[in-house]
């Protein structure tokens, strides 16, 4: 396609401009120095962020004797999965795993459903005392009765030492409701109105119009909710004092990390007889088992991480828009 005269003229002018201001666009030595320093610092910091995970990982998949001699520092030596296999003997770990996974799935699903539905309801201007109802929810973000009154409340409701305490209090999440509400308000109102004219009820509109259209924001809150559930430690610590069976994985890991008695005995009984005699080896494999449990509890996060990337900015930017 031939260029128009105007475009030719523009190109010419641009060239002339760059010629005139050549010095400004030249790479100066100071730029090179800046870039080297800048790239180096960021690379170093990034390494400090990922290296601990890598170190933990290579220690869990290396030969325990080599780990004991301190040889495994940068890459795995003597690959083995025996540490992961040995986890099956660690008491209560399976329980905690089930608790954590189930609360993540159930808790997140209910939270997302509730947030979507309530987020939709509070966009309806005709709701009876809508603004009071909405504020009633939003205010809860800004005050907190405190840890002990909250605990006594759960005792009163019979929710301590009860699996439901992981699920029910998290269903209504005001912050997520705000996010969903803000998102739904951006959906053209005409879509809903035409459905109402056709005689659809609120529930039908929610199910067939609002829910499908707000999937991006729902995915965002689902991911963040799931990470929150998976990482939850405090509720297990506070409400499950007498029920170790119901500890979450993070709480279980905390208990193991603080345990001075060695987990190694669990492992050695499962491996070889000579090892069982070697107390040092036992203590060491106790250490490695702690690493392995840590690795298992971080793995799901690392696995969903690539999916989360897409929702980072959306999540954090929407957070800035409060309504």
């Amino acid at each position, binding site marked *: 396609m031939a260029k128009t005269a105007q475009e030719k003229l523009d190109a010419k002018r641009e060239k002339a401009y760059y010629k005139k201001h050549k010095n*400004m666009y030249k790479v100066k030595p100071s*730029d090179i120095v800046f*870039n080297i320093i*800048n*790239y180096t610092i*960021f690379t170093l910091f*990034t390494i*400090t*962020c*990922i290296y*601990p*995970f890598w*170190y*933990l990982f290579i220690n869990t998949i290396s030969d325990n004797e080599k780990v004991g001699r*301190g040889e495994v*520092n940068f890459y795995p030596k003597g690959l083995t999965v025996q540490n992961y296999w040995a986890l099956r003997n660690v008491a209560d770990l399976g329980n905690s795993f089930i608790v954590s996974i189930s609360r993540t799935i159930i808790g997140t699903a209910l939270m997302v459903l*509730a947030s979507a*539905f*309530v987020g939709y*309801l509070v966009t309806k201007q005709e*709701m*009876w005392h809508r603004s009071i*109802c909405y504020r*009633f929810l939003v205010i*809860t973000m800004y005050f*907190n*009765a*405190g*840890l*002990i*009154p909250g605990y*006594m*409340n759960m005792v009163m409701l*019979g929710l301590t030492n009860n699996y439901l305490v992981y699920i029910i209090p998290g*269903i*209504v999440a005001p912050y997520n409701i705000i996010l969903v509400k803000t998102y739904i308000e951006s959906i053209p109102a005409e879509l809903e109105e035409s459905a109402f004219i056709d005689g659809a009820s*609120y529930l039908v509109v929610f199910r067939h119009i609002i829910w499908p259209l707000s999937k991006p924001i729902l995915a965002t809150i689902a991911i963040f909710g799931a*990470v929150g559930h998976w*990482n*939850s*430690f*405090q509720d297990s610590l506070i409400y499950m*004092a007498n029920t170790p069976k119901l500890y979450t994985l*993070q709480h279980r*890991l*905390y208990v193991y*990390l603080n345990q001075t008695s060695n987990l190694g005995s669990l492992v050695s009984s499962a491996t070889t007889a000579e090892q069982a005699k070697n107390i040092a080896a036992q203590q060491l494999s106790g*250490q490695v088992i702690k*690493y392995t449990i*840590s690795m298992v*509890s*971080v793995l799901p*996060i*690392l696995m969903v*991480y690539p999916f*989360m990337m897409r929702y*980072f*900015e959306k999540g*954090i930017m929407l957070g*800035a828009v409060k309504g």
Partner: protein
Amino acid sequence: MAKKEKVARGASDYLFWVYRLLIALSAVFIFMPNLNPIRVIDKIDPNIALFTAAFSYSSLVQKVGLLLRLGTVKETVFIIAYVGAIVILVGVVLLVAGACMSLGNILLQRLAAVFSMIGSGIGVIGCMVELIANHTVRVEKYNNPTADFYAMTPIGLKLFLIIFALILIISIALRVMLPSGADLEEYEMEPKYKLFLMFLPFGLLAFVFCYLPLWGWRYAFFDYQAGGTLSADNFVGFKWFGYLFKNAATRVDVLRVMRNTLIMSFLGIATSWLPMVFAIFLTEAKSEGFRRFVQIFTTIPNFISWVLVYALALSIFDTTGFINQLRVMIGSLPKDVEGPNYLMSTSAIWIKMWAWGTWKGIGWSAIIYIAGISGIDQQLYEAATVDGAGRFQKMWNITVPGLLPTFFVLLLMAVAAILSNGLDQYLVFQNAMNEKQIKVLDLYVYELGLGGGGSIPLSTVVGMFKSIISVILLFGANSISKALRGESII
């Protein structure tokens, strides 16, 4: 004729409000342990509410196992009480359904009246069952006067009986007063009430888990022991508030905890510009791939729990951790000597805790600034380049002013949260060596109340102060924001 109907309707409207209020009261009362109508014998746990008792028989009898085994009380008593609890609960559920329906048209309202008649009738029956249980206990006590229990007629029982009776009368009256509504064809409700009723369950959840805990502040005024009860006998007024300042040991603790809390918060606030700098310099890197690489991996730590951060810290800084292995490798630590555990050291705890927090959060916090930078008009930079501005001049004169509003909001939020450092980080890193420097307010409250400190009232008092000061700070920050920027942050 029409006018008369309207008058009757007006009266029934008022009556409906009384009716809904009473039903709401009965619904709240089933969550109150003090008003548990089924505590017909003193051995039933005073800390459980009707709602809990009706859901699990085991919670009802958890404190009477010994009594049952010894056979001093027949289990029948508890079974009767339990059945009564369920019956009362069913009654209340029907009443709530009635109250919801009473928001509809006349047909629905008439149905509501029927529902509440049945509901309150069932409720009264439930109360009768409790009276029977009560009577059974009395008979048992009469037969065995030395036994270690006594019969009680709980206040809650009388209260529920009164409420149920009132509702019964009102709903009969309503049923009589309401016009037949024969001209209406369908059960209908105005959309505004429909929406409200759909919202109600979620509002109730928020009430139960966010507002109801405020009721727990009453523990601050009692001499409460774990597992005990609150009564006029152990009411101590403001004793614990004074105790906090008068008791020397507690005062020293609180002052130390406040020092730690404020120092660590101030460290965070004083360096809250770091994520902004991180973002500005990262966007200076020309390579898109490099920027993504850095962003991806520096954000990971934000998504792992503090327990895992501690596990990583152990693997790096423990006696056999990475640092000590490295020292052995380069020869600064003899091979057979056990290296130091850096996590047990007492030096610079505040700085270390700040560093962990920054390590975990900086990549994540930078995202909002990176997004902010991409929103700045590129023409500004071009114009500045033409005018001969250097790299740093552009950063300082264009990027920083562009990001300041965001920075300002986040700074105010941080100031408002100055007392809330969170519990997890300090709990996991705490050990016998560093506990004097590491204990922050949240951790102190936890340990005082639940973690072996064993003083629930005192811990509640500290928590109350924290909550109130936090709310004041938040509103203060908000009015500063309004005055300076004309925008509120909450």
